[in-house]
């Protein structure tokens, strides 16, 4: 009965290994990925390094302001005698964490909205997509500033918890996710509509699958490709948004360092210490640029048009 020989089948090879191979071919993306990995590793070294050098990142030392780079302070000190390098590293942790967390959150949000709209269709779809259009229409930064200015004690939160650094951090993550989930929603919706009408979903339905099963088992894995590409590019935008917001004073506030609020501080010191304006900005730029290149690489790697795999009937 068996009329297909095993030898005729290609060796099993996951689509991921193929993609990784393509990604490796995108040189800028590869370099960027290495850069980001190194940067993240360095930022994560902040605590051990500060222990090793005997530095407390928030400890001010007025006798050691604007110190030139030396054995203890590798990039020198700032206007309050704090170590610039360690603060940059902590700031990097914040930026990267906000970037990843907010992207994750907005992916969840966008996918929830998009898949609901795409899979249910009809009036739900119409309403949700109008909502998405509205959000897209809004200028992001002014909206973020309002959200950043919202007094959480008016929402019943205690003043102490509203002012805690962790809460301020989460608040940034949440408000960025709240205003920027629309791209994800559109992609998820388009994907969901496509997958919804695929025969494999129909076959599962005939076999007794409910909506939940189809969404989880069929829709989500099949729209993951464009979502991963979009998410990568989003990380860069989020880092930029966070730094802009912190720079404008509606983001993460001192003494917690971020690249954005370090620039606010540096803005005041451009006469006495113009170099302080260089590092954080350069890091934001390099990080966002690298993330965008990686995004471009991922897009290239995932692009089916660039796929060599032929489909023969």
């Amino acid at each position, binding site marked *: 009965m068996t009329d297909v020989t095993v030898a005729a089948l290609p060796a099993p090879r996951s689509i991921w290994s193929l993609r990784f191979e393509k990604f490796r071919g995108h040189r800028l993306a590869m370099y960027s990925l290495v850069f980001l990995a190194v940067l993240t590793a360095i930022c994560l070294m902040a605590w051990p390094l500060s222990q090793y050098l005997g530095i407390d990142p928030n*400890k001010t030392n*007025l006798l050691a302001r604007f110190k030139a780079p030396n054995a203890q302070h590798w990039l020198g000190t700032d206007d309050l005698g704090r170590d610039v390098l360690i603060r940059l590293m902590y700031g990097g942790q914040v930026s990267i964490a906000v970037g990843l967390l907010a992207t994750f959150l907005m992916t969840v949000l966008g996918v929830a909205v998009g898949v609901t709209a795409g899979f249910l269709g009809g009036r739900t779809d119409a309403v949700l997509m109008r909502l998405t259009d509205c959000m897209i229409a809004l200028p992001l930064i002014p909206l973020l500033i309002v959200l950043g200015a919202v007094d959480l004690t008016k929402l019943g939160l205690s003043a102490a918890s509203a*002012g805690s650094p962790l809460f301020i951090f989460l608040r940034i993550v949440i408000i960025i996710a709240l205003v920027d989930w629309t791209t994800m929603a559109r992609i998820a919706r388009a994907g969901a509509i496509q997958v919804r009408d695929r025969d494999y979903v129909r076959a599962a339905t005939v076999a007794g699958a409910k909506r939940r099963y189809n969404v989880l088992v069929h829709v989500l894995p099949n729209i993951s490709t464009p979502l991963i590409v979009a998410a990568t590019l989003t990380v860069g935008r989020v880092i930029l948004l966070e730094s802009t917001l912190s720079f404008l004073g509606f983001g993460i*506030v*001192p003494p917690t360092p971020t690249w954005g609020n370090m620039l606010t501080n540096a803005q005041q*010191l451009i*006469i006495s210490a113009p170099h302080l304006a260089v590092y954080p900005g350069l890091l934001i730029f390099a990080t966002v640029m690298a993330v965008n290149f990686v995004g471009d690489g991922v897009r290239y790697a995932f692009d089916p048009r660039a796929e060599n795999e032929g489909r023969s009937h």
Partner: protein
Amino acid sequence: MKMKKALAGALLAATVLASGGVQAQPDKSTLVVGQLQFLTNFHPLIQVNNTKRLVVNYGLRPITAYDENVVNQCVLCDQVPSLQNGLAEVVDNPDGTKGMRVRFTLKQGLSWGDGTPVTTKDVVFTHKMGSDEKIGFSNYNPWSRASSVEVVDDRTFVLVLPEVVSSFASWDQILPVHLEEPIYAANPDAESYTKQSLYNTKPTTPGLWNGSFMLTDYQIGTRLIWEPNPHWPGAKPGLSRVVLSYRDNSSALMQNLLSGEIDAVPVSPGGISFSQMLDIQGQNPDKFSYHIADGTNLERIAMNLDNPILSDVKVREALLLSIDRNAITEALFQGKQMVANGLLSNTSPYYNNGMETYSYDLEKAKALLSEAGWTPGADGICVNGKGDRLTLELATTAGNQTREQIAQVIQSQLSEACVEISTKFVPLQEYNGELARKRQFTGLIMSSIDFSPSTSPRIALGSNRVPNSENKFTGNNFSGYKSEAMDAALDKFDTALSADETKAAWTEIQSTFAQDLPMLPLYFYARAYVSVPDLTDFRQSTYDPLQNFAEEWHRH
């Protein structure tokens, strides 16, 4: 080919644009002053703050003002009243208490910008409005001190004071009756009057101004333009135009100063910070003139004494001992702004040399804390017997870099003494309103307070000056400090009519303050101004705004 032409064109255009700046000759008849914080409203006597005083006095002069030697001088009047010259006298009130009569004569030829003479009618009108609680003047020397104004003639009037006050000879600006009275009559409450006042609806009306300059043009949030008042009877102004150019933050002001966009800038408040001035001075010692004088404006931390931690004077002393104020002023101000030991600076003639002072002493601070029952816990932060942590919130205004820096330094220094501080930077409006005036802060708030020669320290220390609904939330005793000894000393101060009496009262006030420490004094702001070097005849006064002498300024 086309590309090359376009490129050449672009280069040419760039050169023209760039060279415009290099070649532009400074206009010597104009002074461009950079400022922070555009006026919320232009009315000279409502919602008055330091920033407004820096502006309004170009065009509207007070009756009297202190000069650079801290001597009270006549601006609109002929002679400063005193008990010695007989223009002021202590009289018996019908109910047996003592009152005062103070006589002024307006200068000959004083005139509003539209040519209408300034007369006693304007004084009567201003007094009437200034005593009307619904209008709510908030000027520095309240008109409500006088119960009535007796008109002698067009230029002479007598102010009748129901109480003896030491500040009897200090009086602020007057308003033009011919323009503002109809508006006041139609709008008898603060809300609508302020909105309808010509100062806000049409501030370029010449008749609103009686100083050497008047406001001729303005653009909201951006600039104010002052030009000479043709009816000013005094010296003809040396500048034909003063432009107040508003910038968002002090670093923008600094950039504009360095790029030659602005010619002068006040140093905090209302301008660049003192440390920014030092930065500029360090790099460009000759490019600008640096006018620096001692000031009376005190940066201090008020403490909520209702907080059980802070009600213990030992804790307050420990806090002050753990803040290295010398290091702060040395590092941030090169020591050019003086550390404050109390309410008055060491250079004041009334300074009390005998009182207790608190220089940085961490060991003593720790000892005091343990005496007060606070011992370091596992994480280095003190706890008391009940297990409470020694943690306090320090709030100050957002956007002021010096304050934010100092707050972070204090946070860091107090942690050495086992005190945990969380910092909070709030917008100015919120700070002044809810936090300070409504006393909604739990721990520490940092801001400045100015004790002018005519202002009683009662506003910050009197037990009746704790802001509450009874006194309509006036008063600056944000700590909630109540001391009978202090109240008695303040009574003496308020009725002192001679320098000796005043000095004795000040001595007592300062000693009591040093014992009780109701506030933590940090440093005194210097009065400073940075200008192009060709600005001459620039007088800098300790207390009153230098704009009172703006007609004397020249550029050569």
